[in-house]
Structure formats: C-alpha cells, structure tokens
C-alpha cells in the first residue's frame, strides 16, 4: 500500500514536470532553440504569482490568468527583439544569451525578493485530500494540478494539429526557409511559438508556487527536470512528454522513498538509463 501511495505521488508530480517540459519542447521543436533560462522563467512566473496573490491580494485564478498574459507578452517581445537576433545554425549564441539571461534573472530575483524561501498559500485547497482507502489519500491540490497539466497538454495538442497557427508552427519546424514563401513572417511565428511556450511556463510556474517552496536559485534544476522529461518521452511527441514527466516523477518518488537524498539522483539515473537504452526516447515518432 505504501508503494502504491509512492506511485500515485510520483504520477501526480510527473504532471508538473510534463508542464515544465512542454514549453521547452515546443521551442525546440519549432526553432531548434534550447532556452537555458527555461527553469528561471518558471521561477519568474512563481514570483509573479506571489506578487499577484500576496501583494495585490488577487484570487489565485485571476492571478494565474494575469501571469499567463504577462509571460505570454514578455515571451513574444523577448523572442522578437532579442532571441530572434541570435537564431541561426550556430548553437552557441542562443545558449550563451539564454545562459546570460539565466544569471540576470536569478540575481535580479535575489536582489528583489531575497534568498528566502517562499510559498503561495492556496487556502484549504492545499491540505484537502480525497480518501481512496484507509491507507491511500490523494491531495486535492496535486490532483487538480495533474488534471490541469493533462488539460494544458491536450490544448497544446489541439493547437498543433487542428488550427492554422499549429499548421504554421509544424511547417516552420519542418522547413523554416520555405515558410516565408507562403507569405508568413518567420520572426512573427517564432515569437508566437515563444509566447505560447511562455504561457505554458506561466501555468507551470504558478502551480509550482502553490505546490512547494521556491527561491531564486531553483530554476536550473527545473530546467534539468524539463529536459529529462522531454528526452525520456521522445522529441516531437507531446503525449510522450507527459509520459516522460510521469516516469521522471515516479522515479523521483521511488528514490525519495528509499532515502530522502536519493530523490533527485533517482530521476537523473532514470534519465541516463533511457538515454543509454533508447537515446531517441521511449515514445519518439518513428520518423527521424
């Protein structure tokens, strides 16, 4: 029974990791762009949520909405006016620029909010739980977050495969040189992709803020979790990313059950194991 509990906690945690991963995967898919500051953006969203709820006293749902809008706009502008300028075959400039952003964000947050650990209160929601049996209880908040994560990934899937924007994003992923010959502006499409990814990052960050304690330095490890979920699930497969997040979450939960010090290590080892056995990921699309 104890192990079932561990498994359930791991799966629920995996939903959050899948959200971390979805934004990263989207940007890489469309632009072959890896954002080293991805985890720091998640933390920025968490702090924005803190300001919305604690400083401005807004309802959490309104807070989430505003953070999504803010992050989406910032993502659009940042891509259009900064990141687009360093996008090309050479991977060093984007890596360096986002590395620089990561340092700037971490230290700006330290300067503004101090190094203290923070958490956004979510009222009774945080402690309520559903009793499945005598020994198994599922927290309402983690469950709601998991369902929200699945919902967000479903929406992304819908946008990608059922809308004109999604068509453009997939076309850009295939052959960015030809897309302008269809009358579409690459800079705009890239910026839209980042805006979309930033919206997902915003949701992930606000959830992180309500679920656990956070401080300005936790961004890089969120980047690594996101990255691991993407690779485990297989690139270019949104549902695979969800599966990757869940596998990572379960591995971490099992590790933590053995010894608190093993939680993160177990996740990393699961990732390395997948990398050794199936470098393309467990659920990679057949096409190369």
């Amino acid at each position, binding site marked *: 029974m104890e192990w079932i509990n561990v498994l359930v906690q791991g799966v629920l945690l995996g939903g959050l990791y899948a959200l971390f991963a979805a934004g990263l995967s989207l940007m890489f898919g469309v632009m072959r762009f890896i954002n080293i500051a991805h985890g720091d953006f998640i933390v920025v969203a968490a702090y924005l949520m803190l300001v919305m709820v604690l400083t401005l006293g807004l309802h959490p749902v309104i807070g989430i909405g505003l953070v999504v809008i803010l992050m989406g706009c910032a993502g659009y502008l940042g891509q259009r006016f900064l990141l687009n300028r360093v996008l090309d075959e050479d991977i060093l400039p984007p890596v360096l620029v986002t590395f620089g952003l990561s340092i700037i964000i971490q230290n700006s947050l330290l*300067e503004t909010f101090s190094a203290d650990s923070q958490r956004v209160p979510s009222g009774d929601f945080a402690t309520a739980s559903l009793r499945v049996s005598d020994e198994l209880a599922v927290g309402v908040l983690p469950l709601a977050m998991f369902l929200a994560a699945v919902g967000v990934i479903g929406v992304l899937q819908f946008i990608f495969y059922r809308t004109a924007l999604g068509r453009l994003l997939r076309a850009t992923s295939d052959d960015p040189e030809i897309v302008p010959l269809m009358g579409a502006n690459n800079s705009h499409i890239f910026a839209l992709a980042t805006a979309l990814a930033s919206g997902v990052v915003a949701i992930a960050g606000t959830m992180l803020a309500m679920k656990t304690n956070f401080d300005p330095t936790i961004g890089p490890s969120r980047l690594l979790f996101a990255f691991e979920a993407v690779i485990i699930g297989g690139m270019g497969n949104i549902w695979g990313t969800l599966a990757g997040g869940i596998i990572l979450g379960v591995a971490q939960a099992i590790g933590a059950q053995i010894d608190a010090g093993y939680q993160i290590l177990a996740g990393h080892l699961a990732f390395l194991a997948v990398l050794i056995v199936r470098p393309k990921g467990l659920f990679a699309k057949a096409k190369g």
Partner: protein
Amino acid sequence: MAQLDLLSTSRGPDVTRLALIGVGLIVFVALAAAPFWAGRADLRLLMEALSFLALAQMWNLLAGYTGLISVGQQAYVGLGGYLFFALAMFAGIPVLWAIPLAAIAAGIIAIPTGWIAFRLQGAYFAIGTWVIAEVFRLIAAQFPALGGGSGISLPVALARSIAETRGGREMVMYYIAFVLAAGAVLAVWLLLRSRWGLALTAIRDSEPAAASLGVNIRRVKFFVYVGTAMGTALTGAFIFLQKLRITPEAAFSVTEWSTFVIFIVVIGGLGTIEGPIIGVILFFLLRDLAADLGTWYLIGLGALAIAVMLIDRRGIWGAFRARGLPTLFVTQRTLK
C-alpha cells in the same frame, strides 16, 4: 629563448606583432617571477586567475574547435578534486603525485561518461552534460568517508608534506598554478599546430567539409572531450589542494566552473588561444572593481555576455583580429 623562435614562425616581422610578443614575454617573465615580487594576497589572486586560465583554455578547445558546447565541465573540476582528496587521504599517495593521478582517473571515467553524453547533440548535449555533472555531485554527497554532503578538509599533515614552511608551500603551489596555465596554453597551441590541429580547425570551420576530407569527426571530438576532461580534472585537483577543503556544492558548482569559465572564453574570443587570456584578465579586473556590488556584478556579467553575442560573437580578441590585429599564437600557415 626557445619561446621567441616558436612564436615568430611563418610570418615576417611586423611591428604590431613584435610589440604584442614583447608584451606577452614581459607578462610571462613577470608571472614566472611572481613569488619574488607579489604579496601573499596578490599571489593567491594570481593562482586563482591562472587556474581559471587553464580551465578556460580547456573549455575553449572543446567548444571553440569541436563545437561541443558543454555546460557540465564542473563534473571534471569536482571529480578531479574529489579523486585527489581520495587518493591523497586514503590511498596514501604523495600529494604532488595524487594530482596527476586524479587527472588520469578522471580521464578513465570520462570515457563511459562521454559515451553517454555523445548520444545527445548540439544544445541537448549542453544540458545533458549538466545533468551528468549533477549526478556526480549527488553521488559525491553519498560518500560518508569523503564527508558526504558537508564535505571534508585535507589533513594538515598532508598539506605540510608539500613543504615545511608556509612560504615554501605557497611557492610550490604558485608554480603548480603557473605550470598548469602555461601548460594549458602551450598544449592547445601545439595541438593546433600538429596534424590534429588541421582536423580540428577543419571541424571548427565546416563539419561537412571536414568529413569529406576524411576526418573522423566523432573520434576527434571524443578524444578532445576526454583530453579536456583530464586537463579540467588536473586543474580541479589543484584548485582543491589550494582550498584545502572540498564540498559537493563547491566542487560541482555550475556558476563557478561553467558560467564564469564560459563567459571568460566567449567574452575574450572563442576559438582563439588569446581570447581566454584576454577574458581572464578582464574577468578578474571587473571582479576586483565590482567587488562591492555583489549580485549586480553578476547581472552585469550576464549582460556583457549577451552584448558580445549581439554585437560581435567572435568576442573581444576576434573583433580586434578582424580589424587587423595580428595573431600572437600562429596556428596555421597562410598560403599567401
């Protein structure tokens, strides 16, 4: 003066270049004689700068010539440090022998590690190496004998075994740092002038072209990966000998051993031997000037790295060279 002969091959006398070589030689001699003129604090600062120069040259060789962007070289700084502590404290190996042995052991570990990391390409490789460094850090924290998560200090007796007096120890330590840095510069330079250098330069300029010339790109990259891992571990072993204390956080710090090193190389000029030298000088000057600014200094450093990418991604040395400044370390024979 063998140094002068090496430096002046293949190009005719050129006033600027001769001036540059002159400055380089003066700095070299001044550094070689530092224990005789520098104070204790200055010497420590120089040792740190020289260690960073060695790390920067290794990263430069890896990223600048093979295009392998690693954000995980702290794996080898930490590994070098921990292996050195383990060899010196538990295997009873004399301290000065434990440093190169730690580097060799790290090189052996780098072979399977590289095999895994090479399953990822491009930016994925960058983050993959970071994950691997984190794994090393977490594993290091699991060894109670090495202090676990809180780290361990080098016994005083071992430090004393280098030299009896404090002054003597500092002298020995300084010359290790000096040899490390000069050795790293010389090693990269000689490598680039060798037949391997031709392959590396070809890979840097165009991988498809290099492949069509029969260069086994994967093998060259792998050798360079393992080689730079050893160089990095060698420096790491020395750094923690100097610090006399090692913790997982300090040994595998991404900020210290990746962020700073990468910024040094890129701001100075990636893919040149002079770039990391310029970068280290600038980095330590800025750090000295901005010591009181704390986080703002780091924010400024991040902004500077972004600015270099936006304005001229070749870095300071690359930008100067494109405007006609001659090379100090000639690595290729020009056909003109």
